[in-house]
């Protein structure tokens, strides 16, 4: 069975909310929508205090190249526009809306009916993804339409759909595959048109046999789409690893998937693409797993963006002895510093960790056991990065390839000395990146 070739680890899957159907979370009374909901520059607000808005109406426009439009997930009145703390605690500009009713913009098809026939052309599909503010929902929130504006002379051989869901605990992609199968497949068809690629491959790890079976059945009517079972291993969902697992190709250092003839999208993104292309519905919701070993009331929610996190926490009830709340999975997710915040695009999981799992074990001496090297899916030397980063040897860090680190956390998750490798590697990487940038600026 296929998988990526070097490194990787096997964290406990903990897919505790696998069998729980997606539930729609009720509308809040007031919502706060951040204008930055993608990688890149913030979007610029196009509404003002006192404006009446409908569901799906544009709130903030993307002006920069890498940026995504932000739409209103609610109908109501703009209360104010001011900086609000996100889950890291930093304040970012946001639009606060008093929710009144649930009135949708007329251009959006709100019917339940599945529209399979794609009428839009290649350019129209890309423009629609841009207009609807579609971003990659695997976690990075990279504006999707940018991936499809292929550089001169490049063409795509494959659309690769990441349905590996290799992060422990998270189950929204799994539910998506079972509950929204046809929508996802039509979304993939749209992406095939948008890219000009002849073939799409859906990579699913073999710990989800039901999803594999279900999609294999459903793809019988979609000859261009093939389901590829993958051997379960983290980080299979990382772009470079997924490309290797599915096609055997390798993305050269510092290059993009398109240089290997591939465009990679998450399965949740294909669903958003379907809604945008076929229903003209902007990205105004997130599918979020709310889970944890000690949480009795686990959920897979469909939540409107801007909904206060507090309401969701209150709805499920924070388990006693919770030591850490994570946005995202336990391998790459971020620990929340502030729970008084609001849902944003790509917030795919709220994970409660017990106090006993939250504290780090004190580090001891490096044994030079090489487990970090064995675990690294990029073939790097995390132990060496740590030593060099501590001494701020940025040139050496660059020479040893720190910029190729994908920050997956495999090294740290298996370190017997409990050394916080990724902390130091991230610091070293950002310093090295800054050094490279300033050198390039000096040259030009």
């Amino acid at each position, binding site marked *: 069975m296929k998988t990526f070739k070097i490194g990787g680890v096997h964290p406990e899957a903990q897919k505790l909310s696998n069998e729980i159907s997606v539930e729609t979370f009720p509308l809040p009374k007031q919502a706060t929508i951040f204008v930055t909901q993608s990688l890149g520059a913030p979007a610029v607000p196009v509404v003002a205090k006192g404006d009446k808005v409908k569901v799906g109406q544009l709130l903030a426009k993307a002006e920069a190249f890498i940026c995504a439009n932000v739409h209103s997930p609610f109908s109501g009145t703009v209360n104010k526009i001011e900086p609000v703390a996100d889950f890291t605690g930093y304040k970012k500009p946001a639009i606060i809306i008093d929710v009144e009713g649930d009135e949708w913009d007329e251009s959006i098809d709100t019917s339940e009916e599945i529209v399979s026939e794609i009428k839009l052309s290649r350019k129209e599909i890309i423009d629609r993804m841009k207009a609807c503010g579609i971003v990659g929902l695997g976690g990075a929130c990279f504006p999707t339409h940018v991936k499809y504006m292929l550089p001169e002379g490049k063409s795509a051989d494959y659309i690769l759909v990441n349905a590996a869901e290799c992060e422990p605990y998270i189950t929204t992609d799994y539910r998506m595959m079972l509950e929204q199968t046809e929508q996802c497949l039509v979304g993939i068809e749209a992406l095939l048109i948008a890219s000009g690629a002849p073939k799409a491959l859906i990579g699913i790890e073999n710990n989800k046999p039901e999803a594999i079976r279900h999609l294999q059945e459903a793809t019988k009517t979609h000859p261009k789409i093939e389901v590829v079972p993958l051997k379960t291993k983290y980080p299979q969902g990382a772009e470079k690893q997924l490309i*290797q697992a599915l096609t055997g190709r390798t993305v050269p250092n510092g290059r993009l998937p398109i240089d290997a003839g591939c465009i990679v999208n998450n399965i949740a993104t294909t669903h958003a693409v379907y809604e945008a292309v076929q229903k003209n519905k902007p990205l105004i919701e997130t599918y979020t797993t709310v889970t944890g070993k000690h949480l009795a009331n686990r959920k897979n929610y469909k939540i409107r963006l801007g909904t206060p996190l507090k309401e969701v926490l209150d709805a499920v009830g924070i388990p006693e002895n919770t030591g850490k709340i994570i946005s995202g999975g336990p391998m790459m997710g971020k620990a929340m510093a*502030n729970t008084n915040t609001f849902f944003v695009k790509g917030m795919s999981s709220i994970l409660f960790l017990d106090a006993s799992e939250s504290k780090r074990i004190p580090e001891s*001496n490096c044994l030079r056991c*090489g487990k970090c090297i064995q675990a690294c899916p990029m073939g*790097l030397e995390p132990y060496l990065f740590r030593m060099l980063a501590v001494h701020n040897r940025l040139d050496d860090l660059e020479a040893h390839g720190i910029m190729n680190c994908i920050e997956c956390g495999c090294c740290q998750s298996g370190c017997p000395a409990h050394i916080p490798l990724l902390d130091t590697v991230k610091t070293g990487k950002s310093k090295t990146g800054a050094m490279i940038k300033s050198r390039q600026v000096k040259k030009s």
Partner: protein
Amino acid sequence: MSENLLQVSGAPHVHNGESTKRIMWSVVIALLPAFMVSVFYFGLPVILITAVSVASCILFEYLIQKFILKTKPTIDDGSAVITGLLLAFNVPSNLNLLLVVLGAFVAIGIAKMAFGGLGNNLFNPALVARVFLLISFPVQMTTWPKATPIWNFGFADIVTGPTPLGILKEGVKNGDAVSQLMGSEAMPDYLQMLVGQMGGSFGEISAVAILIGAIFLLFRKVITWHIPVAFLLSAFVFSGIFWLVDPTHYATPWFHLLTGGMMLGACFMATDMVTSPMSARGMLVFGCGCGILTIIIRLFGAYPEGVSFSILIMNAFVPLINKGFKPQPYSKI
């Protein structure tokens, strides 16, 4: 629950449970079969030497950490226990206990703690101590009690005899043919070598017991196959070439694999993670270096046995190997 009590730290937020302690105690468990065979063939002195060696290693580590380095003692990590066991395994079973204590001091005090403690030592502490004892006390360190099953205990510490490698070295020097030496009365047959009924440092005698321990370590992912396989295979091939060319002067490759410290060295000493290379490729180079050097010393050196020397020599090359043999990068697959 108040919000400001939440932990905030960087990813990853989960750990696979591996720890220094778990690794070290796994090695201790893996050494048990070899220990039991030693007790079977050499009796009570084995237990005594092992106890003294382990206890003095722990004690020296504790004293040095507590009173000289003034750091929190970390004797519970099990690494001093391993050093103690391996040091004991590398001496004859009739060694004076004071020499064992001295060896423990050299291992822990000089080879380990002087370099900065666990993880920072360049050379395998137990081997440094063994070589120190071998050079300083050559007679005591090369007087080998005969391996006698436990029911014949009583004679065990009286009768001494040469090791198979000693017989070979001496015989070849005197111009005897290898086939003649193999037939000599003092030489054990291959089955005896396999189970460990032969003279030698008491922990190294049984290839079978050591392999059982090594398989356990492989299974627990404490070691990888690279070093033992490279070590044994290169020694086998290298000694095999000489044997094929001139079987009257050179012993068979399987004789070399089953005698002396070859198995213990390849499975437990060379695989010490602190003093071996980091990448798989580096480990293969390191293992081959150990294997070939061992055979060179055995065939052409003054000593009948070369495992300790070859591992220590290769230990010195580890920083260079780490520099020259990087892990295979993703971009070069």
